[in-house]
């Protein structure tokens, strides 16, 4: 079955998703029943490299060590506890149906497929929904302090794109608590000797030996030393590429280097144009700004989103002549409640973001820059009292007040969409292995489960599913065919890659130009935000593709990296990452250009419903909604690197829907 066929995932062959046969609900069970195993005494002979220590990487490293493998885990931060999973606020989905509100594995599966606008792989998503149950059990056993009812049972709340309450949460710090559970499991394994942890160490390249991923080249961020590490398999859990936009809700260090380097070594980059713009972030206030701050989607449970009906009122709010509270009820447009009555303020992220953009494009924005809408808690405060709202969202309200200097208990919050998550990533099959044998990719770094749009509280679920439960079951399918310790760092491939890495560092140090790394990052980010952000057009994307090479040329001619490469040098770290973001931006724009449809986070302005369309006339959807083109684009795009300055080549994995029917995604 599946895994034996993976070797056909070679550049000239078609992509084999290795989805096991059988009815959808039985695939994972059957897979596990027949999957290869490695006996306990042999496991310790195999070594595994895990890059990244967030929910996916940390969970994988800890669990694989428990199973007996020798694990080497790498992170650029000073401690694995600081991976950016820690910043996730709202929650984690689990189809427990503790609320008795009609939830089930099937419903979580279906919501995720529909939420992803029918661009994800059925079998992977169903497996994710199945595993969601075990994840909650595992986290509770580790001591994750989820919110509870007075009787002692676990509490739930609602999230966007679902009509059931299936989200488990730990106030507004769910990611932190899940990551600490995972980090503590990892530290436990470090103490036992199963995991060797390499902090402040960044992977700069992948080493492929005889077509198989067998190691990495890293830079020690304290000493500057360039080192090779070999293993029987490499797992990348390096997160998303949201920082290609410069401003995003990602941590400052989040980067695409590991994934892009893997792409250059043969792994395909899948659906890079599927990026998630989160609707509830604090608006941009000035050009000194280094990052954007998310306000959890959970706020939409009780907050109502609105702008004034008239552009005139909005302009008076912007200039300070009017306050939000001066606008009477009948002059307000609660646009999500108006357009999507059954989901209201809990409409999915892509749809909510686009609606906010439309309102602002019409001149009805309320922040000083014109780019902002209100998120108003006054109704909820009147209904439930300040104390209840404080208990639910206290830390988020405090965070808002600290950043903006405004008190959200008195005045509505102002929010605007910002880049938050990237659904695209390296292509993987059902085993979570890329088309390069031995290279596995987990969590946000792969493309597999969220299609064109991710639903809230699903990223934590996927990261932990991949790390705790999927990779431990699928890894033996690859390793069983490998001789343990077959490749060592004395192989010539390691020398070659090390030499290339050192040469690139020397080149960066030698430019000696006049512009800071940040200035290039900002220029690139503004370009892709403008042309490949919330709205995309053929002309805009072609313009971006013409400009990116100019940015690259200027970068390599005029960037200034001060200091020395021998020792701590944060500008050098940034320069390496930004150089990779520039190359990545090109692939992302190629993908957005090639996908001539609108779906999820990818909105091509040429493809939207109009009043003339049947679906609008019969009331199923509205003019301006995204128009998918299933007949031509129901596939995963997988881009092959063809060399510097050469356009990447598109491969397609057709998406076959056996269990669900493709439909227009309506949240009316």
């Amino acid at each position: 079955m599946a895994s034996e066929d993976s070797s056909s995932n070679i550049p000239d062959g078609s992509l084999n998703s290795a989805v096991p046969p059988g009815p959808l609900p039985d695939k994972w069970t059957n897979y596990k029943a027949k999957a290869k195993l490695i006996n306990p005494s042999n496991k310790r002979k195999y070594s595994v490299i895990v890059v990244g220590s967030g929910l996916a990487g940390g969970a994988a490293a800890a669990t694989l060590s428990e199973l007996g493998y020798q694990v080497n885990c790498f992170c650029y931060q000073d401690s694995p506890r600081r991976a950016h999973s820690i910043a996730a606020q709202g929650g984690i989905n689990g189809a427990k149906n503790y609320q008795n509100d009609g939830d089930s594995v099937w419903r979580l599966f279906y919501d995720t497929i529909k939420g992803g606008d029918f661009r994800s792989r059925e079998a992977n998503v169903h497996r994710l929904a199945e595993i969601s149950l075990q994840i909650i059990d595992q986290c509770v056993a580790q001591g994750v302090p989820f919110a509870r009812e007075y009787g002692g049972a676990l509490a739930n709340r609602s999230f966007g794109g679902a009509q059931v309450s299936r989200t488990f949460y730990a106030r507004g710090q769910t990611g932190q608590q899940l990551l600490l559970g995972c980090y503590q499991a990892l530290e436990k394994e470090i103490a036992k000797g199963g995991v060797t942890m390499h902090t402040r160490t960044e992977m700069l390249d992948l080493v492929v030996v005889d077509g198989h991923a067998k190691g990495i080249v890293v830079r020690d961020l304290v000493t500057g030393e360039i080192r090779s590490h070999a293993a029987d398999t490499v797992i990348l859990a390096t997160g998303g590429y949201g920082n290609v936009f410069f401003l995003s809700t990602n941590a400052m260090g989040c980067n695409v280097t590991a994934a892009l380097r893997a792409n250059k070594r043969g792994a395909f980059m899948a659906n890079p144009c599927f990026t998630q713009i989160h609707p509830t972030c604090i608006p941009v206030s000035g050009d000194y700004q280094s990052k954007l701050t998310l306000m959890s989607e959970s706020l939409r449970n009780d907050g109502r989103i609105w702008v004034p009906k008239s552009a005139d009122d909005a302009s008076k709010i912007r200039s300070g002549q009017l306050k939000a509270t001066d606008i009477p009820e009948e002059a307000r447009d609660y646009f999500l409640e108006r357009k999507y009555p059954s989901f209201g303020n809990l409409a999915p992220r892509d749809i909510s973001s686009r609606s906010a953009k439309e309102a602002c494009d019409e001149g009805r924005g309320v922040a000083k820059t014109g780019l902002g809408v209100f998120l108003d808690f006054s109704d909820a405060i009147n209904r439930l009292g300040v104390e209840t709202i404080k208990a639910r969202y206290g830390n988020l309200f405090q965070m808002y007040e600290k950043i903006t200097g405004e008190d959200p208990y008195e005045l509505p919050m102002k929010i605007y969409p910002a880049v938050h998550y990237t659904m695209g990533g390296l292509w993987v099959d059902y085993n979570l292995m890329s088309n390069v044998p031995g290279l596995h990719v987990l969590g946000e770094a792969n493309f597999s489960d969220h299609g064109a749009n991710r639903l809230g509280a699903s990223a934590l679920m996927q990261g932990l599913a991949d790390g705790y439960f999927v990779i431990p079951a699928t890894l033996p399918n690859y390793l069983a065919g490998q001789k343990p310790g077959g490749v060592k760092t004395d192989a010539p491939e390691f020398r070659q890659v090390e030499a290339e890495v050192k040469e690139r560092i020397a080149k960066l140090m030698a430019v000696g130009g006049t512009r800071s790394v940040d200035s290039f990052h900002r220029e690139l980010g503004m370009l892709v935000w403008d042309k490949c952000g919330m709205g995309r057009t053929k002309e805009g994307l072609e313009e971006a593709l013409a400009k990116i090479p100019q940015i690259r040329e200027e970068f390599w001619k005029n960037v200034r990296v001060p200091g020395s490469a021998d020792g701590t040098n944060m500008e050098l770290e940034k320069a390496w990452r930004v150089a990779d973001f520039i190359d990545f931006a090109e692939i992302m724009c190629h993908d957005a250009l090639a996908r001539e449809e609108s779906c999820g986070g990818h909105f091509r302005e040429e493809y939207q419903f109009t009043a003339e369309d049947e679906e609008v006339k019969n009331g199923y959807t509205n003019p301006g909604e995204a128009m998918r083109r299933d007949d031509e684009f129901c596939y995963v795009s997988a881009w092959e690197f063809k060399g510097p300055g050469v356009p990447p080549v598109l491969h397609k994995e057709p998406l076959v829907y056996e269990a669900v029917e493709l439909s227009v995604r309506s949240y009316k």
Partner: protein
Amino acid sequence: MNLTLKVWRQSSPNATGRIETYEARDIPGEASFLEMLDIVNTGIIEAGGEPIHFDHDCREGICGSCSLAINGVPHSRENGITTCQVHMRKFREGDTIWIEPFRARAFPVIKDLMVDRSAFDRIIAAGGFIDVRTGSAPEANAIAIGKEDADEAFDAATCIGCGACVAACKNASAMLFVGAKAAHLNILPQGHPEKDKRVLAMVRQMDAEGFGNCTNQYECEAVCPKEISADVIAKLNRDYAAAVVREAVE
């Protein structure tokens, strides 16, 4: 606004450090403290110098990376925030700001304002976990945990491991950090089986790392960005004393 910065510069772990003076010009009040340093660093880079190194990542107060003592106080005089959540609107035109690393024997300086806090990881590795193999967990609702206990455990669990408690303490004690993790896990029923082993191992590792003793000054509580109560220290002392007695009896 325009400010004068007095910044600790140290080129490498063994080099001698010194305070250098920088002028920060035209800083917007809406900028964060770290964005102010970004602006200053851009100026330094364009003038051919080496930028001021400091740890930072999420810039939203949760990863625990940022670690500056501002005017002698770890993070900020303002309660409940990290360095990255300090905003420039809190300063006045013409202010002089002293910026130093989190200082402690157990936190050696790496470069400028960056310090090595890996001692914290080793304390967690010694016992700051519940030993539950992936896959062996019982059904999540099988253990009822009262809301009060869950909330109390949560309050302790919010620690971000930044080390401000250590930097604020005249003895460089890590009792608030260790107490917070021990309280989080010891309060929950899942953590009971390993309670004694946990506190003994964590406290012994803490001592081995060179952190000092607690003399009840509560500076740690005052600077903690997550406002963790010093009650966790009292609880740690109780749990530790009980564990020592039981260890001696067995």
